[in-house]
């Protein structure tokens, strides 16, 4: 695999994540989409390290750690959402409507 191929794969993965984030209504599914996007970014970082010699590998480790924390917080938010609206559809929370 070349750098370009790796990056194309990462872009595809990222696009799938964005698509999922916009189209899914389930909060959990949206969280998963975000995970896809983050991993696409990780993939790109690793590819840069491998083929272009950029010092981005430690960054990947940080990103992984942050992602874990983010998922923990995100799931807690989903729990709260469910408790409050009896639903995990994010559209239920629309108090900010103008």
């Amino acid at each position, binding site marked *: 695999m070349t750098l370009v191929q790796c990056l194309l794969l990462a872009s595809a993965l990222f696009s799938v994540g*964005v698509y999922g*984030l*916009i189209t899914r*209504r389930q909060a959990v599914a949206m969280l998963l989409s975000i995970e896809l996007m983050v991993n696409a970014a990780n993939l790109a970082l690793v590819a840069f390290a491998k083929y272009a010699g950029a010092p981005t590998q430690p960054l990947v480790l940080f990103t992984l750690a942050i992602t874990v924390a983010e998922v923990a917080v995100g799931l807690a938010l989903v729990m709260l959402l469910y408790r409050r609206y009896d639903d995990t559809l*994010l*559209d239920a*929370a*629309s*108090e*900010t*409507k*103008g």
Partner: protein
Amino acid sequence: MNDPIFLAALALFVPIAAALFLLVAAPVRHRGAPAAGVCVTASVVALAAAVRLVFVHAAQGDARWTTTWISAAGKPIAEVGLHLDGASVSMLAVVCLVALCVQVFSVAYMHDEPPRGYGRYFSFHALFLFSMNLFVLAPNLLQAFAGWELVGLTSYLLIGFYFAKPSAAKAAVKAFWMTKLADMGFLFGLLWLFVATGSFEWTTKLAPEVAVGVTLLFFLAVVGKSAQFPLHIWLPDAMEGPTPVSALLHAATMVAAGVFLVVRADPLFAQADATREVMLWIGSFTAVFAACLALVQRDIKKVLAYSTCSQLGYMVAALGAGSAFAGYFHLGTHAFFKALLFLAAGSVIHAVHSNDLADMGGLRKKMPLTTLTFVIGALSLAGIPGFAGFFSKDLVLATLEGRANWIPWAMLMGAAFLTAFYMGRVVCMTFFGALSHKAEHAHEAPLWMSGPLLVLAVPSVGAGFLGGWLAHSLGAHYETHVGLTPIVASTMAIAGLLGSIAIYGRRRDASVAGAIERLDKASMVDRAWELGYRRALLGVSGLLGWFDRYVIDGLMNFTGYTTIEAGAAVRGAQTGRMRHYLVAVVVGAVLLALMGLL
């Protein structure tokens, strides 16, 4: 103790230290009597310093000390400091002496006040003494303006001392309004002067048209402060304040500040003949006009208030005739005998519990000391030869005698007759005749009150003989002479006194007295004038109100309304759905990326 600057600083800063102490130390102020002690002590120190300063000045001559107040690149914009010459040193002594007498008098006069009011009263007095001294010692017009405004403030506070009484609160606001209106003249005059010359000095040389404009603006302030026609109407109302306040602020010192300003700024006024002409006419007219009004008042304090207007008219006329010394001399003697008259009137009011002349009468036997001192003050004010008022009034009249236009001279002569007449009327109605009902339980004032009366009676008689010395320290020329003016003036004074005694003496001649009191036309003029003023003021206020409500507020409301409408128009974009926001974020990010690519 021979440093003149140190002495002047003492007279200036001890009173403000007392005032600040009373401001901060609320427990002392609220207990009343200790506050009076602090204030009177400060005044004693100030007076001692001022008197010592007179002698030091006589020996060492003028002195001046200044420090930069507002600094700027190049040269300072403004300075503050102490300016000691003949005028400021003697004025300082007069102010401190009268202030101390009035404060000592107040100790007994205000005794029935609750302690808090008592303390507040003396705090204001300490502040006033500082403000007045700040004005008197000013080395330039800017510091004078600061002092000028501060005495205006203390005047407002003291007129409204009984602020729970609606008429007093109203009078305080009226005095503040009228004098502030006039003070605009001072402010604009200062600005004009600074723009034209870059200086606030008393002795600046000006282009002729600037000189006229600036001095006319200053004179507007003088008209307000010194209660000249047509801005005199606040002074009679100011009598709502406690009587000692009327004696100090609204007779002896504060209202004379206007005259003192012109004396000080004489080098400026000397460059503006047109302004002096205006001053001459306004002063002469006020002297006669206010004397007529004094004739028909029933309130003893209002008689004295109009009399003050009238005497200030004399001073302004003298200044207009170009003799700063004559005006200043009359200011000095007037300060003594008018303060004396007011304090003696206060003593009477204290005894009778009424301001109305009709409630008084026959007090001669009950209050011999008050009678004696009041009569001395009245004779001095009337200008009976030998008393202080005679010399200074004579000098004012003599200044006008040689002029081509004799009308001001004649007006002031008429005013001299009226002065003697109304003072005779007050004396007869208060101290002679039958004992009135309210006067039955009157008794002589305590020593705290009669003491200041006796102290003030001395200069009321003798200050006239200091004319030569005062002229010397001001660098003016003065000599007494026998001529047309003194003879006519003393004839007028004696005729006025005899006339009033004939009408109001032992058995009050009801028919003539009634006719004179029915001369209320004059006060009708006053009332009509006031009504017109109110109309004009309300009209202008209404116009300004309309402009404010519909143009300025309208603009504001239009802005607010537009914002609300615009908000309503775009609020649909805010759906509250997370996905919509996400789409917006993605679209935005894609667009930014595209921009980066292109």
